[in-house]
């Protein structure tokens, strides 16, 4: 399935893009991360949370979403 991956803040600095479309077979969020860690060497050193369809999820969550986002520490306000 085709998934939109979104990057924000310092994560977007690592990926040098704000979003991209990637194709995945079924699996978990962890499999998406494996692909991204491979693609972006320094991503592994960064702190971030993962949202699937705008809800925070753990790495073990099943991949269901059309939209995955990598979110660095929140710093609003």
């Amino acid at each position, binding site marked *: 399935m085709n998934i939109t991956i979104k990057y*924000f803040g310092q994560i977007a600095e690592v990926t040098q893009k704000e979003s991209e479309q990637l194709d995945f077979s079924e699996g978990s969020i962890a499999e998406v991360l494996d692909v991204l860690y491979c693609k972006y060497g320094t991503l592994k050193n960064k702190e971030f949370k993962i949202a699937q369809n705008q809800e925070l999820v753990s790495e073990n969550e099943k991949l269901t979403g059309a939209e995955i986002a990598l979110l*660095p520490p929140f710093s609003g306000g």
Partner: protein
Amino acid sequence: MSDKKPKNVFKEGAISSAFIGESIAKHQTKTSIGAHNIFLGQVRADVINGKTVSAIEYTAYEDMANKKFHEIRESAFEKFDMTCMHIYHSLGTVKAGEICLFVFVSSPRRKVVFDALEYIVEEIKAHVPVFGKEIFEDETHQWKVNS
């Protein structure tokens, strides 16, 4: 007073003191209100390793953020007997000394507004995907971390 769908909390650039004054004025027809409490977040000119922050550039995962703001709003209305509440957050560049967050709660009674405002501000800081990039005077930057 609770809306059913998320509205857009974000405003481009700083929140002006005139806008805040007008928001207060609009509540003077609501004569069941006895107490307002307002939180304003202002960009600090912090000095870090000898360099001074001149502005913060805010970005957000806007759809998720507006959804979270809406959830915070709904849960605040459930917890507290408020007459109304308003949240505005800046996107884009906000210079040091300018206001980037405006949270406004009103209730018949004062004890309610103190508890409600602190709850809402802490929820925003913890759960809303907004990202602040601190720009130094020499145009280098670092990513803000909330404490």
